[in-house]
């Protein structure tokens, strides 16, 4: 497998909004791509299409060599659980769980043996600098929470990590630290990264920049 993601002639439209048409987009294994564009340009929508959380109207999406556009929802869920990691702008950690449980949650549908979940979660967290693995996430600092969120994204040994505005709520310095963390984790995990961000200052960090605005097709919406 040479490609983490391959899209061809992808079409999607919202009932009362814009439409997307992606003639072709490929991300090689381990490649780091920035998905640029302003707020509301369609970056998140494209990420949810890749993750299989939204269904395309046409075209093909291949993740880790599997055509998810042709799959039933439950099969898309399985591909997402095993091959895709997600990082969100506000971390989206579950407050009722500890740091290691939050990470282990991502392994629940991964097919990995249940007995290994917590130990793998602890190893990942320690590798990313979180020592209090048994603490509730609400007791951790924002920086530590960011690390937990990154650990969760790479827990299932993904082929592709999708990051949706991971630094949007951080100042420039913290954003740089967070981005370093995500990219280092992806590199060490061997995962490709498709990172959506409106921050033009991040372009230098990525091997390739794709502007989502080139995919917006108003006529698709009509």
């Amino acid at each position, binding site marked *: 497998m040479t490609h983490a993601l391959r899209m061809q002639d992808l079409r999607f439209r919202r009932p009362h909004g814009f439409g997307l048409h992606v003639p072709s987009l490929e991300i090689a294994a381990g490649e780091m791509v920035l998905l640029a564009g302003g707020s509301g340009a369609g970056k*998140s929508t494209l990420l949810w299409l890749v993750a299989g959380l939204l269904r395309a109207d046409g075209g093909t999406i291949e993740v880790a060599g599997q055509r998810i556009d042709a799959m039933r929802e439950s099969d898309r869920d399985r591909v997402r659980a095993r091959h895709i990691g997600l990082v969100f702008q506000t971390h989206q950690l579950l407050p009722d769980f500890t740091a290691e449980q939050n990470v282990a949650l991502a392994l629940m549908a991964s097919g990995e043996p249940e007995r290994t979940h917590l130990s793998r979660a602890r190893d990942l967290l320690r590798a990313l600098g979180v020592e209090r693995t048994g603490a509730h996430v609400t007791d951790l600092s924002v920086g530590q929470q960011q690390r937990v969120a990154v650990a969760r994204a790479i827990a299932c040994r993904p082929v592709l990590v999708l990051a949706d505005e991971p630094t949007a709520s951080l100042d420039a310095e913290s954003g740089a630290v967070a981005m370093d963390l995500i990219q280092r984790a992806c590199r060490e995990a061997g995962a490709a990264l498709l990172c959506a961000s409106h921050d033009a200052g991040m372009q230098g960090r990525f091997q390739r920049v794709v502007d989502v605005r080139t995919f917006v097709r108003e006529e698709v919406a009509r």
Partner: protein
Amino acid sequence: MNDLAVVLASLRARRLSTAITAGSVAIAVALLLTMLSLRKSGFEAFQRGSGNTHLLVSADSSPLVAVLNGVFYANPPANPISWEKYNEIRASFPYEWAIPTQHGDSFRGFPVCATAPEFFSKFQPVRGEPWKLAEGRYPEKSFEICMGSAAAAGTGLRLGQQVRLTHGAGSDHGHEHTEYPYTVVGILEPTGSAHDRAVFTDLDSTWILHAHDRREHEGIEGMTTAADLTDADRKITGILLRLPTRPGSDASAAIQQQFDALRRDTAITVAQPAQQIDRLRGIVGNIDGIFIALGVAVLVSSGVSILLALYNSMAERRRQIAVLRAIGLSRGRVQGMIVTEACLIGLVGAITGVALSIVGGALAAAALKARIGLVVQPDIDPRATLIVLAGAVLLAGLASVLPAILAYRTPVADNLRPAA
């Protein structure tokens, strides 16, 4: 990590709501089981009182009335039986015993039963459980009384105290037989039957009281003694009959035969207490059904409280559901977690309810015995308990259907957007 760990964490996060909801299930289950338990022991309590009597003879209007009056002291029987008739019945068959009883007087509302000494030596108020004295002795002479346990507790009478009986039952305001004081010589142990509310004395003294009233009306002065009694004064209101049986058996093939023989006598009413009590159970059983229906209604309302608790928590769960879906859990699996959560609440509530009904039933039985001498033995039927447990869990599962559908339909992408 597994689904159960996620469910338990969710329950822990909503401790108060979980505890209140499980508590409402527990109360409903306890109520239902207690009703089922008391229903059974209540029916058994009906059986107490007629004891080892095979047949009951009276001059009441029907066999059921005869049992209500003769065994449960419902009312003083309106029609007497002559002593001559008693002797005729006793001689008509080789009964094991034929004990005469006379109801009609009372003391502070507690019914008086005048009877023969065999009432204490041969009749057993509860089959296999003969009379036992808590204090003193049984009446041996005229104008001595022995108190049932509830009557003693209700009146506060002690051994050696003197009392005056009232003509008629259930009232403190009837004609008081002031000329003839009775002495309390014994107090009985509780039997768990209606006899605990009665006051017992001998037949002669009761006949003397009423003969004295008669003689006063006739203008005869002076105290009345047994020597002044006429055949007309010697009236009774019931006869307890027992037929000979084989050792170790309470049944006799002759009971039905003798029942039919006595029924031919139109001057009397004959009843088989066990049969009449079964009829009574049939009547009371309908009311009992209403109580069971009420218990089921309470259980259903606790199911509604589970539904409301889950439904109200759905708004705050949407983000959690979206995250679980985003990391790869299927809609069905998330839906299953909601159903599991509801079933766990139902199960924990139901188990707590079973424990409550056992402990509460034991405490209530102890209090009933101590305060009013009523012997109720809460007996929780394992089959009924399992049915109620399964019902509570099933109901909880049903209550989770709507929240589970909401979980199923939660739009993932919308709920992962940062709050504005």
